[in-house]
């Protein structure tokens, strides 16, 4: 956490009206993070608003055990999970408009990632697509290091199997 961020957090803690600069700093990242999971820009707006609203109410409890961005993303992922439960996410057919997919193979791969169990999917997405460090992911998902690697290896194994099945069926 840099000095600038620390000062912004301290100011927000002392007076919630000073939360604006923190919002400006992280709104885009949080919105994109949520959009890549909901695939729905309007819902992503609402859930981003919910995330910042919760963060603003709980900023006093932030103890600095991770970066403020990770703190926001932890709130965001839980907000998205709640939304999944309410909206029966499995029934939605996403168009992945928020992704740059250069070929059909990448689209198929993304579809396979989306089919993974929730936490395996998040580990793969955060680590390889969003480029987050394992420690950050462990904090956001509230999991241990060993659990992180177990989920990662499990997800890769599943993806490899699915991809091989697809290759055999001549899907590529």
């Amino acid at each position: 956490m840099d000095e600038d961020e620390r000062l912004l957090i301290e100011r927000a803690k002392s007076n919630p009206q000073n939360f604006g600069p923190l919002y400006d700093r992280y709104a885009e990242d949080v919105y994109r993070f949520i959009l890549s999971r909901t695939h729905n820009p309007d819902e992503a707006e609402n859930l981003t608003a919910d995330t910042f609203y919760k963060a603003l109410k709980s900023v006093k409890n932030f103890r600095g055990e991770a970066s403020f961005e990770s703190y926001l993303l932890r709130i965001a992922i839980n907000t998205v999970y709640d939304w999944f439960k309410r909206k029966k996410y499995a029934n939605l057919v996403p168009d992945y408009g928020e992704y740059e997919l250069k070929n059909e193979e990448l689209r198929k791969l993304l579809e396979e990632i989306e089919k993974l169990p929730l936490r395996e999917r998040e580990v793969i997405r955060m680590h390889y697509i969003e480029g987050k460090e394992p420690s950050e992911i462990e904090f956001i998902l509230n999991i241990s290091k060993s659990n992180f690697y177990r989920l990662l290896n499990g997800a890769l194994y599943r993806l490899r199997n699915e991809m091989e099945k697809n290759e055999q069926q001549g899907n590529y």
Partner: protein
Amino acid sequence: MNNKEIIEEIKKIKTKEGDIGPRKEKIRRKIILRFEKEKRHRQILRRFVFACLIPIVLILAFIPLTTSRSNFINLKEGKIVIPKIEAFAPEIEHINTSIKGPYVYDGENKLVWFIKKDNNLYSVALYDILNNKKIETLSPSVDNMSNINGGIALSQEKVIAGVGDHLYVIDRRTKEVLIIELPEESLPREKKELYPIKAIVSLNEDFALISRADSKGITEFNATSLRAREIELPSNIDSPAAFVKGGNLIYFLAKDIRSGKQLVGSLDIKSETVKILKDFSPVSISANKSLFALSKDGFYKIDTENNQINKINADIPENAKLVSYGKFIYAVNLEESKDHAPERVNKISVAKYDPDKNILYEGKIITGDNTPFLLIDGGEPIMLFNLSTEN
């Protein structure tokens, strides 16, 4: 495909980096809206809680008033009872002792258990009328820290006496004394250092009712388990100054805090129901099946079940002391001679009322002795009286 190849493929998936400026402002407004919505909800909730609290507070404020009011019973005036008057010849036996303060008489063994006062120190003492005619002090002497004389009552096996906040449970046979320091009053009228015992009445072999000064209640005390509980009185009634037993009820005399008038009340121990008789201010009470009371206006029989008051047409002085013995109610009055002649002449008038036959027996005794006396009727000692104003 191996893991490395899959990872390389996954890394090729990128999210678009378009400008989200307008959305950012929309989200900001949504956050502000959420705050305003929550603020409105909080205000509505606060108003709702406030609106709910007002009637609750009002109800709670009125509960003591309504309950205390509901404790007050209006008496229906009944007929004037004209008893048949007959003469009788009571006897007295003077006891040459200086028994002062609260006492209780054990007629069977001719013993007087009393609270002895000696230089502002109080103790429980016993006077044996039959044998040595001496006063035996049973408990340590204590300063009761007030001018309240305490109380004493007799149960089947025990004597329960109280001075200050000390309670003495004495075995009538072995005279073994158990001293109990009563806990601080749990229903105090105001915060005080001490809540001295004012009156005691025994209920059965284990239980006694204790009245303590500056209390809003009566303490029910178990002399075996040594446990106590409080029975609350109406808020504007002072703790009782005297108790009498009558059937299943305990009657008491207590002052109305606001008017200072002495009132009479009844307590049903089982249901803990307290009733105060409205607009009736007696000086002395006694009870057997009914309640009998003596006020400035005369002698009354009160049917507390039907709340009916019947005046008994009897010429009984207002300062007389009422005592119940068997089926009779005795009214004993001492008229001391006012002259300072060396040979004083005191008149003791005794009236005995038989409620079943409606007969009032009247008798008079002239005596020069001023010491406490035993009233004897038909050879049977009824009660010890200490009516002298000099005590």
